């Protein structure tokens, strides 16, 4: 198993009720596998990550795509589209 540190920002942190958590993933998991695992929890996770709402994922502080692998011990952040400037 691979334990990763999840971080949630902005609207997603409010929706999930926490700023982050440690999660264990099977070795070789990709971003899509992590998202599926979170959606399977139901509730706000399914609402935010399992429907039509847009979100972004960063792995070790680099923007990532669904097919990207998650390295052991990675910092993975999930957040809404950005609105700075």
């Amino acid at each position: 198993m691979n334990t990763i540190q999840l971080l949630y920002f902005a609207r997603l942190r409010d929706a999930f009720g926490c700023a982050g958590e440690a999660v264990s993933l099977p070795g070789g998991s990709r971003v899509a596998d992590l998202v599926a695992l979170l959606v399977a929890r139901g509730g706000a996770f399914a609402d935010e990550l399992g429907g039509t709402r847009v979100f972004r994922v960063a792995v070790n502080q680099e923007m990532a795509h669904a097919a990207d692998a998650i390295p052991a011990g990675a910092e993975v952040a999930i957040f809404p589209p950005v609105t700075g400037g």
Partner: protein
Amino acid sequence: MASITIRVGPDDFDLGAEYAALVAGEADSGAVVAFVGRVRDLSLDRHVAVLELEHYPGMTEKALAKIADSAAARWPLTAVTVVHRVGPLHPADQIVLVLTASAHRHAAYDANAYIMDYLKTEAPFWKRESDGQTAHWVDARDSDSEAIQRWHPDDTP
């Protein structure tokens, strides 16, 4: 090599001081363009009393540096400064500063617009507006995603 300065934090900035620091001790920059973004008191016809800016410490600075590096690879820039504030801000407060310097004006103008366009779509900042009673997270705008298309259809920094 362009000299690149990136700063993210709660403190306000002084345009004159940042400009002076940018050009100090060099005479290569024949053109300097400055962009300042400020908090408006109306957003989509709603009154704004407080604008809270959240960021992702670590990744935000890296993303801004990547955007500035990308601009410096594309145009012959001598210097770039990007300052972005976080925390609670109020109408008329300054939010963001982008300075771009080059030998000639076209590179400085274009690189400045490029950096702002990518900052708005790639740098992890999020705005939360409050009218003093209720607060809501600001939704990303399609027009911001479309703005980067003009630089290259598949361009990402």
